[in-house]
């Protein structure tokens, strides 16, 4: 008597039997040896399902969250970067133009104080945006995502990344508003300064692995 193969026995366990297995089913109904083999398979599968559930050695949430926020920030910055480059370019044009902030206007009217204040702000803004871009590039080159970090570093990095996201959202919002209002310009400058501070802190955390960052 030819007994059923393991493959045939396994097929018989599948839901929705194929018609070609009629012969195998008929054999199984009368063969005690094959029935015993099938029971062994059932028992083995039951034992596999009952195996202990292994647990991860450490908590990974903060590392995942940190990477998620960093990814999101990078995406946002790609878009915001275009806006800030345009802003920086327009600032540079104002500052460097021959008849720029200190020059007179073609119609002979003097430049009012509000314009002069905004121009100083523009110069500062151009500098701070450039600094922000330098730090962003330094972080990109350092590529913290490709490096192992301890839980403490991950916690601090995740917190900084979250704060950066918040600042980026505000920068985006201010980018859509009228730039000629001096108060908005001052707020914009404050936000970019905050952004540079956070990027600096992030660099510190990654480079010194939090332990020495005094945070």
């Amino acid at each position, binding site marked *: 008597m030819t007994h059923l193969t*393991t*493959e045939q026995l396994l097929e018989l366990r599948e839901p929705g039997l194929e018609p070609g297995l009629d012969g195998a089913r008929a054999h199984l109904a009368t063969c005690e040896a094959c029935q015993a083999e099938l029971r*062994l398979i059932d028992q083995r599968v039951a034992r596999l*399902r009952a195996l202990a559930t*292994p647990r991860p050695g450490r908590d990974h949430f903060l590392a*995942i969250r940190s990477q998620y926020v960093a990814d999101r920030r990078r995406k946002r910055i790609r878009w915001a970067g275009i806006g800030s480059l345009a802003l920086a370019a327009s600032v540079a044009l104002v500052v460097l133009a021959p008849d720029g902030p200190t020059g007179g206007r073609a119609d002979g009217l003097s430049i009012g104080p509000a314009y002069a204040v905004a121009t100083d702000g523009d110069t500062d803004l151009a500098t701070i945006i450039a600094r922000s871009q330098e730090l962003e590039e330094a972080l990109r080159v350092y590529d913290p995502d490709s490096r192992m970090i301890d839980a403490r570093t991950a916690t601090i990095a995740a917190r900084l990344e979250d704060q950066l996201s918040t600042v980026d959202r505000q920068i985006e919002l201010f980018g859509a508003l009228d730039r000629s209002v001096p108060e908005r310009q001052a707020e914009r400058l404050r936000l970019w300064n905050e952004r540079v501070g956070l990027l600096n802190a992030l660099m510190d955390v990654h480079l010194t692995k939090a332990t020495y960052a005094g945070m």
Partner: protein
Amino acid sequence: MNAFPLVQEETLLPLVRRGDPKAQESLYRAYQAQVYALARRICRTREDAEDVLQETFLEVFRSIGQYRGNGSLWGWIRTIASSKALMRLRRNKYRDTDELHDDVAMPRREDTGLRMDLEAALERLSDTARAVVWLHDVEGYTHDEIATMMSKTVSFSKSQLARAHARLRLWLGEEAVA
């Protein structure tokens, strides 16, 4: 293997879609053990399984907008985890070739009289065979689904499973009682 259903899934998911950290953490806490267990059974090392765990949840957080509620949330997360684990296997190309050889029916000398526990026997299978056994017998995937995930044929999945069972039977020293 069934995961525990996430309590308040309906209120939590919109928050996860917005990137809310607390909601993300709740989702992670609800399913991390199941994802890790699946990854650990498929991957050869704990380190690889932990990488798969991270990659899976990163993908879940990024793509949660694509989950439309068709099927269970765990089913959706499990598919991502399985795919990441299989990708890791392909990338690593561990010690064996991915094929089980035809020596299953002819035990090697050191297999004779060998009786190991199920954990050890499972570990000893080739990566592909172990993955097929786990995905089919424990996670409940069909051969069609496994074949798709592995970019192989259905008959490949079936034969891997049969050969793996033959090996497990031998290594576990099981005796059929008629």
